[in-house]
């Protein structure tokens, strides 16, 4: 049988261990509550950034299509969810509105005609997980419209 390296008949080492663990627990619990709050903030921030990116991406695509002339088109694939939340994108002649988790973000664009390819509505909804083609179309000889159609 092995000889013990340290003789500790009064169990002072056990006592030290317990006291150290107590302090460690107190410190850890306070750090965990701080970390939890920060993690929630990070998740919300990530969702807000992704939402803003979607709205800017769609608004930018509309601007590029409009300024590039007749026949120019851009295909956009919408993400299925934004950080686990459903969302909806609404496009009209003045900009792009994204709604997610009770919050809204808006990207302005230069006033122009927007229409749905099939229904000719001036307000178009873009749904999560679907692909869309944004196309510049000529209407009434002189004017152009940005048509959004589901791919």
């Amino acid at each position: 049988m092995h000889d013990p390296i340290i003789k500790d008949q009064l169990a002072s080492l056990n006592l030290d261990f317990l006291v150290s663990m107590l302090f460690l627990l107190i410190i850890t619990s306070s750090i965990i509550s701080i970390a939890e709050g920060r993690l929630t903030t990070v998740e919300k921030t990530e969702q807000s950034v992704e939402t803003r990116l979607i709205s800017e991406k769609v608004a930018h695509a509309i601007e590029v299509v409009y300024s590039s002339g007749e026949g120019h088109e851009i295909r956009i694939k919408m993400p299925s969810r934004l950080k686990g939340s459903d969302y909806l994108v609404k496009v009209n002649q003045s900009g792009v509105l994204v709604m997610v988790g009770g919050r809204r973000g808006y990207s302005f664009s230069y006033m122009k005609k927007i229409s749905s390819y099939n229904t000719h509505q001036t307000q178009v909804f873009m749904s999560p997980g679907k692909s869309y083609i944004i196309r510049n179309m000529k209407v009434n000889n002189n004017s152009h419209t940005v048509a959004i159609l589901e791919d």
Partner: protein
Amino acid sequence: MKKILIVDDNQAQLPLEFLMVVGFSLIITISLVVGLSDSNELNQAMTASRTGALDGSVSDGLAMYPEDAFNEYKKDHLRLLNPSSVKIIKIDYINQGLSPVYRKTKIQLRIHASSPHLADKSDRNCMGDRINFYARKKICESFHTENLTNSFFNPAFSNNYVFTTADVRWE
């Protein structure tokens, strides 16, 4: 097995000294614990307020707002619907003593922030209100006292403190 005594202590002086040391230690520890728990609570509240202020600055910075605020800004503060740079610089607090109304120590928070590209005063007020709102909200969430306050989380409560916010100071 024969035990070796290191010290002869027939009059039990060592246990007496031990008891005295333990007694003094207890008195000191208890008085420290009261002060430390108060400091810990204030520290937790300040951390929560900083996290909340960050939430508010992210919301302001990315121009992502709840529906009612969005509709209000669409009417009167169109500039706020565009993203802007918002930075929280520091959070100060002033201890205003015991509040006779709530019977808790009243703390006023003052958040210092910066947004160099936003010059309009009323726009800044709106942004500041949002930052303050989220700071108070996070304090209430941290201490689970949402049911003690109103929908603006003003004032925010912890166990021994009541928190209000001064207008955000823009630098």
